């Protein structure tokens, strides 16, 4: 492909080399994944819808009316607002939401139970989330403070809330919510690699010897997934007993393909190794006296892909200095914000994100680069269907986007009902449970719709009392604009007013407002972004 032009409908079209370019303002160009000669059309989002997407992605809430008005009048203001959103007070909370989709630490069950900490039933959810969020909060802190992103594997502190401070050996700075904290059990500083939260989720067994943890580390930090490699014992020598297996891992070429690099990594994590993975006291504390145990048990020296390491702290530094860490950072955020898996066709674009990251060192540079990308700003790519032009709203975004606006927090007996699977609606609503569902749902389903509808009713009845006496038509148009970032046309508005009047006739004004809000929340323009 050699250029771009504008199609008759205003969309951007990549042109073949011999075609003369027409109007090239605001064009986007992308490679077809299947046929490099075929033009791929990327339809850009309108400025208000783009602002809405950015606002939801970066701070989890809807743009203000004034912001929508402003970008409608001057689309170039989108980038100005994007910068504001990157530094919004809600950035950190949303950052954690996004990380949950990748790190899968916010699960409903661990190997130990809250009862073992003598907590009340109503503390179960808070206990679960405090543990799972620990590494995510640390990363969000580093992101929010524009610290080098490599700090996530090197700093000598963590973040803790009062729950963690009460159950783990932690000294926490004063204040509400999540605060900088330090473990007091002698663990070295290695950022999230030294957090209990990460290793509660990615546990090991006595026989596994931290290998599962090393594999998780590789997947999360390097985007290299050992577990994607097939393992067939048909190709292995006799593995009849533990001794034979351990020997094969060190001598057999088939095993060495993974274990020559995996086991030396696993050996660095033995301060977290437990003699009994179901014992809370074993899990809660780091064990400095076991740091060298891995080398002995596995008969392997600690190293990072051939580079000798002295322990966990050096492991963190090795991760940070590995070129793959930067690639993985770019890839991770492209996938989270594009809402799809990247592949080889994306590589040059990902490389651009990586370079932007390296030039700055903060994760905000990557977020800026991805949200600048043509794909991020597209409403679709025609028949190709590779670009996710409509991101489906997740339970987390349902909560955050309307929680502030409506004042609704759907809690029950200590649980956030939009953020748990045991009693609530996270998984049914298309969210990630971190175990059996590891990617967010991208297209509607019955249970997703049910959650959306019930959430809509809940939001409607929460907001309705504040709308009493408002001029109906004007207010509904304003609400549609705020919720959808699309100006409702007269015909749709007539229908909406008609619904309001019908419900009011059958019930009362408050119910009418609630119902109108419910249908606005169920609207395709609200539940996608």
């Amino acid at each position, binding site marked *: 492909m050699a250029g771009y032009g504008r199609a008759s409908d205003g969309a951007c079209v990549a042109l073949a080399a011999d075609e003369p370019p027409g109007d090239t303002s605001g064009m986007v160009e992308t490679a077809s994944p299947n046929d490099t000669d075929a033009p791929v059309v990327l339809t850009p989002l309108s400025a208000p819808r783009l602002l809405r997407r950015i606002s939801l992605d970066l701070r989890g809430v809807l743009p203000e009316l004034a912001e929508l008005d402003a970008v409608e009048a001057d689309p170039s203001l989108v980038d100005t607002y994007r910068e504001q959103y990157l530094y919004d007070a809600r950035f950190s909370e949303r950052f954690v939401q996004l990380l949950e989709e990748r790190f899968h630490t916010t699960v409903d069950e661990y190997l130990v139970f809250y009862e073992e900490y003598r907590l009340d039933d109503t503390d179960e959810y808070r206990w679960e989330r405090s543990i799972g969020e620990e590494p995510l909060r640390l990363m969000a802190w580093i992101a929010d403070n524009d610290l080098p992103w490599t700090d996530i594997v090197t700093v000598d502190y963590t973040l803790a809330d009062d729950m963690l401070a009460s159950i783990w050996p932690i000294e926490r700075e004063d204040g509400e919510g999540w605060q900088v904290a330090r473990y007091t059990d002698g663990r070295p500083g290695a950022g999230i690699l030294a957090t209990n939260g990460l290793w509660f989720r990615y546990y090991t067994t006595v026989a596994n010897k931290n290998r599962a943890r090393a594999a998780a580390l590789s997947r999360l930090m390097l985007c290299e997934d050992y577990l994607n490699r097939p393992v*067939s*014992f048909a190709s292995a020598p006799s593995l009849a007993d533990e001794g034979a297996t351990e020997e094969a891992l060190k001598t057999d070429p088939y095993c060495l393909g993974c274990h020559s690099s995996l086991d030396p990594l696993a050996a660095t994590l033995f301060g977290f190794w437990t003699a009994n993975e179901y014992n809370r006291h074993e899990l809660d504390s780091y064990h400095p006296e076991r740091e060298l145990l891995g080398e002995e048990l596995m008969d392997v020296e600690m190293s990072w892909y051939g580079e000798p390491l002295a322990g966990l702290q050096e492991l963190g530094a090795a991760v940070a200095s590995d070129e793959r860490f930067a690639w993985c950072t770019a890839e991770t955020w492209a996938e989270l914000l594009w809402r799809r898996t990247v592949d080889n066709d994306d590589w040059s674009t990902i490389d651009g994100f990586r370079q932007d990251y390296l030039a700055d060192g903060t994760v905000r540079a990557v977020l800026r680069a991805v949200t600048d990308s043509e794909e991020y700003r597209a409403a679709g790519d025609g028949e190709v269907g590779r670009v996710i032009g409509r991101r489906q709203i997740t339970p987390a975004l349902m909560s955050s986007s309307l929680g502030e606006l409506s004042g609704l927090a759907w809690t029950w007996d200590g649980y956030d009902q939009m953020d748990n699977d*045991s009693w*609530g*609606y996270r*998984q049914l609503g298309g969210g990630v449970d971190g175990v059996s569902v590891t990617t967010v749902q991208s297209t*509607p389903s019955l249970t997703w719709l049910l*959650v959306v509808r019930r959430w809509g009713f809940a939001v409607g009845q929460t907001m309705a009392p504040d709308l009493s006496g408002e001029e109906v038509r004007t207010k509904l148009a304003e609400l549609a604009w705020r919720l959808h970032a699309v100006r409702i046309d007269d015909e749709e508005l007539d229908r909406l007013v008609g619904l309001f009047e019908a419900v009011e006739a059958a019930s009362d004004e408050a119910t009418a407002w609630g119902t109108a809000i419910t249908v606005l929340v169920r609207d*395709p323009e609200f539940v996608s972004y």
Partner: protein
Amino acid sequence: MRRGVSRRGVLVGGLGTSLLGQLALAGETRRHNFLFVFAAGGWDPTYCFASKAGVSGIDTQSGAGVSSSGELSWVSHDDRPSVDDFFATWGDRCAIVNGMEVRSITHERCRRLLLTGRVDSGADDWGATLAHGSDTLLPYLVASGPAFTSQYTASVVRLGPAGQLVELLDGSCFSRSDAGLVAPGATVQELEGAFAAARVERFAATAGAGFERRWAEGYQQAIEQLDTVTTRADDLDLEIQTGGYVTLHARIKPALTCFEEGLSRCAMVQHDGLWDVGWDTHSGIDAQSEHFEDLFQNLGDLLDDLDTRFVDGASLLDQTTVVVVSEMGRTPGINGTGGKDHWTYTSAMLVGAGVAGGRVVGAFDDDLLGEGVDLASGETSDKGRALTSGVLGATLLAMGDRDPGDTDPLTAIMA
């Protein structure tokens, strides 16, 4: 207090009788159903499916013996009377597949491989693939356990561990709120439902191409499903038992009803071992015996139930294949903590419709590796094919009249 979906409590949708509703209501030609029973954590086949007593290097349960019925043989033990009872009763409907390899050793990937044949996330599992396009209202009902989807997400309907689907349908979800939420009245819900459905229809009519069109169509389909579920509220019993220890049989009952009513084609239920402690016995390997006893007690109850439900003159068992699987096997030898670790070779058991029962196909050799199998005869052979989870999947797809793709099915167990 738990309850099923009732006409009184349920929301009333607005689309009228949809295509899906017509199909479901018309009692269309009965389908071949698939019920997946997933033993989570990794079972030890030597406790039930393949005797290796006396084989050097393979630790087996003391006191275990071999029982057989015709060509079917299994591992028997006084502690597991339900296993013997099950095979004595249902053995002629059972095919045991031994020596199947799931080519990973981590739970997460083994589950994906077992149920999709692939390690990456871009595949739909066997249940979703079989259910997709079945024109059923609740195509793949997941009572508990894993379900992996890529294109066929809309096929999967999760009940939720606490029965959340029913709560969402009948509005009792609002009672689980500290905010004092209440369900709107039926008239209001009817107005709201009709408005929302019409709005989505207008949106879909103008949706762009590619992903947006797929998404809009998916939204329309979900609305149709909801509308039909609402319309059929009186017929549906999706209530599940919650609180305390819930047996596998109790957990899967709503799916059986849905099979009976022609509302689902596939269902999944997870078995977490006796007292839900899981099958992942890295220590205390003899817990496998208790887990198998509990599993087979439940399977016996399940098959009794299927056999006494009749649809169009045939028992539900004659219309349902029960697929009993676990994501991995366990090592030949006992480890230092008295358990066994992960092993890529495992077993599977198929029971019921479409299954050539009364036989064991495949085998473990004396290193507990799978032997090659002639897919047509089921005989082990040096020149035979390796049994993998992909072969199992191709077999299920072939049984269910779906394209098995490039992988040959194990026709030896297909009736």
